[in-house]
């Protein structure tokens, strides 16, 4: 890859410009949401011409879909890096919280604006959720088999967790004004959820 031909330099430059546009688009979307992020502002922030944005992304929708896609890839990769086939559910959920906390602004806009966003977004979003669901389902099935958590249909376990976490993110101003809802309350939510689904320990049984 050490060739410095004009073609390879141009290709590298082009990739770098695309990366910069995407990075600034993400920052703007995190700050003001997807619906209100204009390509002209992205161009200004990335210090490229407005036309240059469309060289790399055919439309505003394509750019926004790329923003969600990039976020999806990061979350998927982070969860997959947990990798080990035997991570307990608690560890997977803790990682999920970390991933979301690091992108809480973007996530919040995505959740708030989802019904208003163009079609392409759906697929990207379900892609993220599928990766999350996959890891949660595998870990939950292992914990159920080992008797550590109760037998609960996987989709209800998943949706109960997601509902709880997303509720705190969407209504962040009620739970952690001006701060990250998940960095503030994530640990509490995780403890609570695990408490709900765990099988009673011998100790708590003997208390009754």
């Amino acid at each position, binding site marked *: 890859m050490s060739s410095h031909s004009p073609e390879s330099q141009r290709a590298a430059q082009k990739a770098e410009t695309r990366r910069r546009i995407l990075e600034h688009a993400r920052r703007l979307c995190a700050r003001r949401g997807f619906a209100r992020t204009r390509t002209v502002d992205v161009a200004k922030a990335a210090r490229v011409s407005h036309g240059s944005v469309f060289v790399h992304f055919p439309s505003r929708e394509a750019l926004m879909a790329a923003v969600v896609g990039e976020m999806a890839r990061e979350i998927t990769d982070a969860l*997959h890096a947990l990798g080990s086939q035997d991570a307990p559910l608690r560890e997977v959920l803790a990682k999920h919280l970390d991933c979301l906390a690091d992108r809480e602004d973007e996530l919040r806009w995505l959740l708030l604006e989802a019904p208003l966003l163009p079609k392409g977004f759906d*697929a990207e979003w379900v892609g993220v*959720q*599928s990766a999350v669901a*996959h890891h949660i389902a595998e870990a939950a099935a292992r914990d159920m088999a080992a008797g550590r958590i109760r037998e609960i249909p*996987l*989709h209800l376990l*998943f*949706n109960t967790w997601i509902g709880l976490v997303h509720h705190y993110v969407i209504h962040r101003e009620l739970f952690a004004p001006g701060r990250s809802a998940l960095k503030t309350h994530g640990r509490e939510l995780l403890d609570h959820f695990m408490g709900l689904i765990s099988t009673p320990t011998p100790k708590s049984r003997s208390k009754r």
Partner: protein
Amino acid sequence: MNCTSCGMPLRTPEDHASGDVTKEYCRHCAHPDGQLKSYDEVLAGMTAFLQRTQGLDPGVARRTATATMAKMPAWSGRA
């Protein structure tokens, strides 16, 4: 790299079909002998997965799986 059939990241050898890193698709998309499943088999598997793990409506699950597979290199020959 990612599975060319379903998009799942392929990180460890075990992620690959029958643990063979030269295979560009994942263990979920392959038969036990390492052969890539058919389009219909992968579609059915992915649809069932979406229902089982996320509780999606059957029609939504099938449409989502179809849209996901449409973007995958392994199935690019299909309309």
